């Protein structure tokens, strides 16, 4: 709810997400799809709309869409149709985009969101359909000409449309993160918003609580989750202001200006295109074999919700910890490799604490972590078997982050192996106590607080290598005289 001047308002949001399908080849041609290639090097005559060239459906892209549909608990439509969406633009070579319109390959589904208050919200998915991406117009290469790069033209996109079930920018952010997580678990989209493999349009309207839906505005192509949240919050407040000042919201398409944090009108309903959709006569209807769909279903990987439940039951993690660890597929895999045959809570603490901290400082994802799961596991083992102390382990970890070296090698090289020889520790204690005779007397006179000081001195004398438990045990005995 947003508090306006005249009372409470509810924001209603539906998101259209364009997710680039992970596939080596394009949706209707064999051309490659890699990101960052030189302009117009991944273009077949089909993609360039050359005369007489015909689209042929890439079976793998269909499989990816079906897999995604199943991951969204959605209906799979065994009969779907590719249509042509007609409009002129230089980066749309054929003058039409092949897309699905009336009969998409995936129907109703849902995504559940873990809300901050611990509840779960179900967000409806209206549909998922496949379509071709357009090329890219480059306006900045020449003072008066526009260049066109067709590398992206024809790349497969899944458009995933949500029901207008979202109620705030924050919920929209949660939804996008969850959707991205599911796509990554499935391996159907890499979810990389900076490279444009995940793009989002937001439909936003406001209403009085319980009132019918208001007029919506569509905010186009916002390229980060944070911007989506900002754009929605801005847009909702803008609409409330318009209404509260006696105006009416005009249905229009708006662009988010990230630099200024505002939305600006792009075109109004009257200027909307007539896309003249009709079934593409070059393609037969897409008919799926139900057995094939079932085989894809059977091969689905474990998805975030199921993995979270398993982490809670199998590893005894809290809902919050499990939620954090499963959010990214790579993190979950990493954690499981660390936790294997080890104390799971210790593993979780290392991953969420020291590792996340280090990755944050380095600004990299877990897939680029300088410390592998096996190395972190080995470090935990060194603590568990008493080779190093927990305190020294922090130093070893820092060194692992810096050098990517194995913990055992670091321990050896720096001579950090824990001192467990009680006679050596005893000797160290004796030396400390002998040099601090005055403080020993004070302690024995009842100044208990000095105990920590002696521990510190002993650890210092042993370069931190002394086994803390042994130090404790022996020191107490010696001090007791």
């Amino acid at each position, binding site marked *: 709810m947003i508090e306006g001047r005249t009372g409470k308002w509810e924001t209603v949001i539906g998101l259209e997400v364009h997710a680039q399908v992970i596939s080596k080849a394009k949706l209707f041609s064999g051309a490659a799809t890699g990101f960052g290639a030189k302009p117009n090097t991944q273009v077949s005559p089909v993609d360039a709309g*050359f005369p007489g*060239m015909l689209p*042929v459906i890439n079976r793998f892209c269909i499989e990816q869409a079906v897999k995604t549909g199943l991951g969204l608990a959605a209906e799979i439509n065994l009969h779907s149709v590719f249509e042509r969406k007609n409009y*002129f633009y230089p980066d749309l070579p054929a003058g039409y985009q092949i897309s699905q319109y009336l009969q998409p390959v995936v129907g109703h589904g849902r995504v559940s969101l873990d809300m901050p208050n611990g509840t779960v919200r179900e967000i409806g998915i209206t549909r998922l359909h496949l379509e071709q991406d357009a090329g890219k117009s480059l306006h900045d290469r020449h003072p008066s000409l526009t260049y066109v790069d067709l590398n992206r033209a024809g790349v497969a996109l899944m458009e995933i449309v949500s029901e207008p079930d979202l109620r705030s920018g924050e919920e929209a952010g949660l939804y996008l993160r969850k959707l991205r997580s599911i796509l990554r678990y499935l391996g159907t989209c890499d979810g990389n918003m900076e490279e444009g493999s995940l793009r989002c349009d937001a439909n936003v309207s406001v209403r009085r609580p319980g009132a019918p839906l208001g007029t919506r505005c569509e905010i186009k192509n916002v390229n980060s989750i944070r911007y989506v949240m900002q754009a929605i919050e801005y847009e909702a407040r803008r609409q409330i202001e318009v209404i509260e000042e006696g105006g009416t919201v005009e249905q229009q398409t708006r662009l988010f200006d990230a630099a200024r944090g505002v939305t600006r009108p792009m075109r109004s309903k009257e200027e909307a295109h007539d896309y003249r959709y009709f079934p593409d*006569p*070059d393609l037969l209807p897409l008919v799926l074999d139900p057995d094939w769909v079932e085989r894809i279903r059977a091969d689905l990987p474990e998805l975030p919700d199921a993995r979270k439940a398993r982490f809670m039951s199998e590893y005894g993690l809290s809902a919050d910890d499990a939620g954090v660890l499963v959010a990214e597929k790579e993190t979950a895999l990493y954690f499981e490799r660390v936790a294997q045959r080890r104390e799971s809570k210790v593993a979780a603490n290392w991953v969420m604490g020291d590792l996340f901290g280090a990755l944050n400082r380095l600004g990299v994802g877990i897939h680029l972590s300088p410390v592998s799961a096996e190395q972190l596991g080995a470090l935990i083992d060194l603590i568990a078997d008493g080779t190093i102390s927990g305190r020294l382990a922090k130093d070893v970890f820092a060194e692992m982050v810096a050098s990517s070296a194995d913990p055992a090698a670091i321990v050896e090289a720096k001579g950090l192996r824990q001192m467990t020889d009680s006679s050596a520790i005893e000797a160290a204690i004796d030396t400390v106590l002998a040099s601090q005779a005055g403080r020993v007397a004070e302690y024995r006179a009842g100044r208990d607080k000095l105990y920590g000081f002696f521990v510190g001195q002993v650890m210092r004398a042993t370069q931190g290598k002394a086994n803390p438990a042994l130090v404790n045990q022996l020191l107490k005995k010696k001090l007791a005289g």
Partner: protein
Amino acid sequence: MSDLALLALNLTEARDGLARKMFSARELAAAYNDAVSKAKPLNAYITPTPERALAMADAADERLARGEALPLDGIPIAVKDLFCTKDILTTAGSHVLDGFHPPYESTVSDKLWQAGGVMLGKTNLDEFAMGSSNTTSWYGPVENPWRRPGDNRPLVPGGSSGGSAAAVAAHAALAAIGTDTGGSIRQPASFCGIVGLKPTYGRCSRCGVVAFASSLDHPGPMARTVRDVAIMLSAMAGHDPRDSTSAPVPVADFEKALTGDIRGLRVGIPQEYRVDGMPRDIEALWQQGVEWLRTAGAEPVEISLSMTKYALPTYYIIALAEASSNLARYDGVRFGLRVEGDGLEEMYELTRAAGFGAEVRRRVLIGTYVLSAGYYDAYYLKAQRVRTLIARDFAAAFERVDCILTPTAPSTAFAIGEKSGDPIEMYLNDVFTVPANLAGVPAISVPAGLSGDGLPLGLQITGRAFDEETVLRVAQVLENAASFRHLPSFLAGAGR
């Protein structure tokens, strides 16, 4: 053999002559190259490729010498300029494709070359195959090699494969390939006195064929005899993974279907094809055709194709809707003509205004209209429903009969400019041919006689989907009975 004697051979005879080393493929190609230049007044070719013809003929001669002859080795073939040919100018008869040299070869032409065929050149056509008289080409009209006796006015060859038909009729090609969207192979075949076959939809790949109306475009062969056409089809047909609408159906040796035996076949005679105003001689020839087939042992059966009267409007809605979208790619951005303007929109407008002729512009406008919001249901969607009914009409008929006999066109060739400017009058020429395109079933036109004014007339045999064999078999019986031996005045005038 003299050039004249060489040119008088049909494809089957030339094939046998080459096999028996009576002449070389190079001699044959040279004779045809010469014939192509002599036929220049007909404007049948946009781009002759004489050097390529000789090179391909030499390669054929080598294979023939080694005894490794391919099915079409050394056969000179003309290609409608709607088929993309690698590195050879491909125009679709349109200004908008100026200078377009495709980096690929159409599947059908490629199959012909793989079978040993010799490419003579690219033939003229109505712009983007839109027309029934070959008068809309940017490269000028094609003349029919036939003229009415005692009348020197040039006549149209029909369209849109008018250049291919005229080239074959004028002995400036042994065979040709065309495309048939609403009759564009059969009607010019009828007008020029040759055989033209529109195969089943999906039988010949559309890959590399400049699209007019994707769901209606059918590549097919044109030649002098039914056997020639059967030989061509065997080489052209087959599933193509690059065309999703191409059918994974085995290809027969169609020549083997020509048994001459049609005893017991049931031949449908659709009452709805007796249209008002059909010339008497066409009506009479149709009746004659029925008798020929009866004499050969077939059984004529009166049938009804009740949806026939809706075929033409249905066709013109679907074809133009698809065309409006298919032609959107000619925008001046990537290939062909570009007329610079002040900004993008003006470049589009100027390029398309200059690049497209009046008929293409008209069709793009109509096609855009019938797909527009608010009109889609009333036009496009309804037309698709009627199309389904037309296909059902044929399916029901083919439960009772094995093929259907009709005239190919309601008229003979007319003079350039003889028809009024009313496009509807021109569209009516397709009345007997469009139903087979809408239903996707195979249909052939066979020259069966001369009209009262001395021009060729074709009869059409339509068959079941993928049953080209019956169509060809009946067509050959008709051909034999009609024994059409007349030559066009162009050949007579050349002293042949």
